[in-house]
C-alpha cells in the first residue's frame, strides 16, 4: 500500500459518496454528516480523557518518586476504566439544602464547554470539526461557559467550602482570561486570520517549522501561564486547594456527577494544550506533511502531548500560590506585559520590514519586554522583602 494515499479526507469523501448513492436529500446528507462528525468528536474526547488521566497520574507518580497506578492492566493502563465503572455504579448523594436545578445542571455544562471546544481544533489539514472563520473567538466564548459551570456548582451546593471555591473561580478564571485573550490576539494579528486551520497554515514556512513561538516567545509564555490558571492547575489550583477548602466547588458531588467534573478538568487541560499547539507550535505543521497528510495528525497529537506533559510536570512540581499573589501576578504583571507586547508587535508589523529582519525584530522586542518585565518584578519583590518590618505602624496624626 502506498503510504501517501493515507488521507483522512478520502474516508470523508467515501462516506459522502455512500450517502449520495443511497438517494437521500441534500439536507438529510448534511444532518447525517454533522451527526457522525459530532459523535466522532465526542468519542475521541472520551477515549482521550481515559488515557490522559492515566498519563497524568503516572507522570505525577514518577516525578514524586512513587509508582503511580500499576495494578489494573499493563502499566495500570486500565485504572481509569476501572475508576469510571466504579463511579458509574456509585450512589449519588445530593445534599438536602442544595439548590437542585443549578446543582444538577453544573456538571453537564462543565462537560459541554470542553466538548464544544473540540469542534474547531484542527487535527490535520482539513481534518477539523468545523473550520469556522471566527475560531479563536468561538473558543473564548465556549471557554467562558466553564467558569459559569464552576460558579453554579459552588453556589448551588450550599456548602461553605464549595462557596469559597466558587468565589475563587470567579476571581481566577475571569482574571486570567484577559492575558489569555491578549496573547491569542497577537498571532491572529501576525497571520491575519481567526480560523484555527488558517493559523496552522500560516506557520508552514521553513520546512514546516515557521512556528510563531520562535518569533513570539513572550506571547506563548503569557498564554501558557494563563492557560495553567484557566485549566485550574497548580500553581493556580486555589479553587480546589485541598488543604484549605477540601475540594473546592465540586465538594458536594458524588458518583457520575463528580466524574463529569473530573473529566472536564483533564479535557480542559488537553484542549488548552491543543490551542497552544495550533496557535504557537504550528499545529499539524512539520516536515513532509505535504507529501504525507496523515503525518499531520501525528505531529499535532505529539506536540499537544508534549505541552500536556509540561502542564502535568508543573502541576507535580510547584507549590500553590496565595490568592493575593495570584491576582497581582495577573493584573500587575501579565496584563501590562501583554498590552505592551500587543502595541510593540502592531508597530513592528507596520514598519514593513523585509521578512528575516521582521522576524528578528519581533524576537528582539519579545525578549526585551520579557527581560524588562522580569527585572521590574524582581526589583519590587526585593523592595518588599527588605522593607523595614515594624511591629506596628505608628499612625501619624493628620493636621
Amino acid at each position, binding site marked *: 500500500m502506498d503510504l501517501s494515499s493515507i488521507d483522512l479526507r478520502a474516508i470523508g469523501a467515501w462516506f459522502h459518496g455512500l450517502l449520495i448513492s443511497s438517494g437521500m436529500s441534500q439536507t438529510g446528507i448534511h444532518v447525517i454528516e454533522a451527526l457522525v462528525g459530532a459523535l466522532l468528536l465526542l468519542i475521541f474526547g472520551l477515549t482521550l480523557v481515559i488515557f490522559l488521566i492515566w498519563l497524568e497520574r503516572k507522570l505525577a507518580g514518577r516525578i514524586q518518586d512513587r509508582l503511580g497506578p500499576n495494578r489494573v492492566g499493563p502499566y495500570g493502563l486500565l485504572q481509569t476504566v476501572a475508576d469510571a465503572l466504579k463511579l458509574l455504579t456509585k450512589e449519588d448523594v*445530593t445534599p438536602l439544602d442544595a439548590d437542585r436545578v443549578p446543582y444538577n445542571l453544573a456538571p453537564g455544562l462543565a462537560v459541554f464547554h470542553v466538548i464544544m471546544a473540540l469542534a474547531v481544533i484542527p487535527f490535520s489539514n482539513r481534518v477539523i470539526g468545523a473550520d469556522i472563520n471566527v475560531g479563536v473567538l468561538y473558543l*473564548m466564548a465556549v471557554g467562558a461557559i466553564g467558569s459559569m459551570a464552576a460558579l453554579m456548582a459552588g453556589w448551588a451546593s450550599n456548602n461553605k467550602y464549595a462557596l469559597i471555591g466558587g468565589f475563587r473561580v470567579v476571581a481566577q478564571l475571569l482574571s486570567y482570561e484577559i492575558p489569555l485573550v491578549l496573547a491569542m490576539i497577537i498571532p491572529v494579528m501576525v497571520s491575519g486570520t481567526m480560523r484555527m486551520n488558517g493559523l496552522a497554515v500560516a506557520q508552514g514556512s521553513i520546512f514546516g517549522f515557521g512556528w510563531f513561538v520562535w518569533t513570539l516567545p513572550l506571547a506563548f509564555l503569557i498564554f501558557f501561564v494563563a492557560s495553567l490558571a484557566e485549566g485550574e492547575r497548580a500553581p493556580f489550583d486555589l479553587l480546589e486547594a485541598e488543604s484549605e477548602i477540601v475540594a473546592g466547588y465540586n465538594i458536594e458531588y458524588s458518583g457520575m456527577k463528580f466524574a463529569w467534573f473530573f473529566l472536564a478538568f483533564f479535557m480542559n487541560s488537553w484542549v488548552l494544550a491543543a490551542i497552544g499547539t495550533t496557535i504557537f507550535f504550528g499545529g499539524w505543521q512539520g516536515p513532509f506533511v505535504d507529501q504525507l497528510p496523515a503525518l499531520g495528525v501525528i505531529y499535532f497529537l505529539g506536540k499537544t502531548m508534549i505541552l500536556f506533559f509540561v502542564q502535568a510536570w508543573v502541576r507535580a512540581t510547584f507549590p500553590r500560590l496565595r490568592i493575593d499573589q495570584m491576582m497581582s501576578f495577573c493584573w500587575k504583571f501579565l496584563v501590562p506585559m501583554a498590552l505592551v507586547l500587543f502595541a510593540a508587535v502592531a508597530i513592528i508589523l507596520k514598519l514593513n520590514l523585509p521578512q528575516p529582519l521582521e522576524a528578528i525584530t519581533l524576537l528582539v522586542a519579545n525578549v526585551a519586554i520579557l527581560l524588562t518585565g522580569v527585572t521590574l518584578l524582581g526589583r519590587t519583590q526585593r523592595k518588599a522583602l527588605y522593607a523595614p518590618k515594624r511591629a506596628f505602624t505608628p499612625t501619624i496624626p493628620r493636621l
Partner: protein
Amino acid sequence: MLQQYGLIGMLALIALAFPFVVVGFTWLIRPKRPDPIKNSTYECGLETIGETWVQFRAQYYLFALIFVVFDIEAMFLFPFAVAFKQLGLFAVIEALLFVAMLAMGLIYAWRKQALEWQ
C-alpha cells in the same frame, strides 16, 4: 459555511444531552439509600452553622468590573487583528490609542488600590 455551523449545532445538542443521559443511566443501576445524616451538608463532620449563601465580597465586584472592560476591549481588538494587514497607519495609531486609554484605566485602578487583595 452554514454546514460548518451545522456540525457545531449538532455537537452542542449531543454534548449537552450526553452528560445528562449518562447520569440518567446511572440512576437505573446505582444504589439509592438516602438518610438525613448522609444528605446533610459536608463540613468535616460538624453541623453547619449560619447562612451559607452570603453576599460576595466587594473585592470580587471590582475585579469583575475591570474584567468586563478588558473583555470588551478584546472583542474590539479581534476584528482589528484580523483586518490588520489591510489597515493603514491611521487605523493602527487609533487602535494603539485605544489600548493606551485602557492601559490608563488599568493604571488608575492600580493607583486606587483596586488591584490589592485585602
